[in-house]
């Protein structure tokens, strides 16, 4: 698929000299959900803000649907919707007015039906005649999504969409992203909740200290870097790992009732067969076993530490 967003050698140095982005290059494919992961201060928001025109790039190019984001900013920006991280709203404006305002800003004629559909989709229809300040935090976040969707963007940026949000709203947000993806909207979200990326993303990019250190299909990433854990629940507790098994690098739980073995699914030999036979030889019986795949979180922490 052709990239809908192309970023080349993007550099942003703030006035104080702080380099928030160090030559970032990135392609986003049409219709995908891309998760941008990174610790606080890694440059996630600066990258999004630069693409959306809130921050001036020091150098480099951004092309949105083939349009240069600087020279042809009108065409480029029309394709983009942005839901920022903070929840900036004008407290006294009415809900339906503010959504109509967003549509107008993007140069489109009023469309009551569309606004109605968006507000209904986001469960804000009942609140449309009230001022924004009467909304709860979760509603405000949904309102910002509604505003960003009011001009029917092809690309939607969600900057930390579920930061400080309760479980239910987080699930709502995930459902919404799923629905938008079905409609063909390209979604780029930043998060530091790994489970969010794991749940929603097709591809994952990791940014740290202003550099993209990795871009990978999520499944591929998890497969490549994925380690598995084998946990054995023992019949009788042990007080230490028997000498015959020490070379397997087993970890004994504190209460002595389970042993954990770590193996790499990509390695030529996982060592599981050898472990099993050694266990049998040592006369250690177990009544259950369980395997776990390491989460994106482990992978991520690993990467950022290495970076």
């Amino acid at each position, binding site marked *: 698929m052709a990239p809908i967003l192309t970023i080349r050698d993007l550099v942003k140095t703030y006035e104080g000299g702080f380099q928030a982005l160090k030559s970032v290059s990135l392609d986003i494919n049409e219709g995908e959900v891309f998760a941008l992961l990174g610790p606080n201060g890694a440059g996630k928001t600066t990258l999004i803000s630069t693409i*959306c025109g809130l921050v001036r790039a020091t150098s480099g190019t951004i092309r949105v649907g083939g349009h240069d984001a600087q020279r042809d900013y009108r065409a480029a920006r029309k394709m983009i919707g942005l839901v920022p991280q903070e929840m900036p709203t004008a*407290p006294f404006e009415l809900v339906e007015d503010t959504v109509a305002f967003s549509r107008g800003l993007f140069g489109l004629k009023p469309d009551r039906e569309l606004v109605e559909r968006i507000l209904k989709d986001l469960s804000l229809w009942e609140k449309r005649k009230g001022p924004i300040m009467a909304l709860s935090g979760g509603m405000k976040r949904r309102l910002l999504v509604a505003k960003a969707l009011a001009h029917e963007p092809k690309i939607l940026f969600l900057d930390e969409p579920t930061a400080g949000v309760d479980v239910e709203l987080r699930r709502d947000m995930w459902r919404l992203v799923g629905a938008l993806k079905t409609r063909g909207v390209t979604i780029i979200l930043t998060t530091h909740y790994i489970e969010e990326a794991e749940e929603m993303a097709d591809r994952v990019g990791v940014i740290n200290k202003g550099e993209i250190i990795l871009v990978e299909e999520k499944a591929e990433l998890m497969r490549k870097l994925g380690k598995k854990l084998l946990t054995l629940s023992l019949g009788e507790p042990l007080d230490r790992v028997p000498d015959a098994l020490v070379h397997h690098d087993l970890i004994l739980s504190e209460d002595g009732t389970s042993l954990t073995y770590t193996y790499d699914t990509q390695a030529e030999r996982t060592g599981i067969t050898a472990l099993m036979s050694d266990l049998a030889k040592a006369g250690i019986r177990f009544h259950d076993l369980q395997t776990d795949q390491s989460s994106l979180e482990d992978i991520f922490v690993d990467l950022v530490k290495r970076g």
Partner: protein
Amino acid sequence: MNFQAMKAIYLTEMARTRRTVMQSVISPVISTVLYFVVFGAAIGSRITEVDGVSYGAFIVPGLIMMSLMIQSLSNASFGIYFPQFTGTIFEILSAPVSFFEVTLAYVGAAATKAILVGLIILTTASFFVPLQIQHPVWMMAFFVLTSVAFALIGFIIGIWADNFEKLQFVPLLVVTPLAFLGGSFYSIAMLPEFWQKVTLFNPVLYLISGFRWSFYGQSDVSLWLSLLVTMLFLCGALSVIYWIFKTGYRLKP
């Protein structure tokens, strides 16, 4: 041109006026009317006429001019400051709209409101004092040019200000004193010679003088000088705005 966007900003600003009609329309009208009623009655009983015009009528143009300047300035500065304060400015900055269009919409809305307030004051004044408008076209020209120039200045202040104190500083501590000292309540011919010279350095004097001329055909300084100073305000503000646009000052880091 993104006319829809300009319309959206303009209408949102006008909706804000409707929500705050007490503060943005009624209160400036009442306070200005109080000036010419009270001053007109109190001082008018001692100074009956200035250059053949009754004192109550004489002060009306100056008061309207003062109200126009303060209203357009505060409206525009608050209009662009508030979205920065709440953070909603992000939406305008990320929209396919040029800085020129944004400026035009905010300044247009602020000037509209100021002109509205000015016209209400003018109408109200006509009930209390014997007004005459000898040069209505000139009057409207000064009306509109001053409103636009000060709305532009207000727009700059709104971008520059990073707290409410800075936002209030110029209307309260610069424009109001200059208007009081620029001949709102007197003709500078009534001042000692030294203070007449000093007053000539006050740019607001030229605005008030020209505006008053359009009413009564009398002025402290020449009409063309008044027009020139008005245009200087306008061009000065426009060049600062052009610079803001070029550098992204405060709005785009």
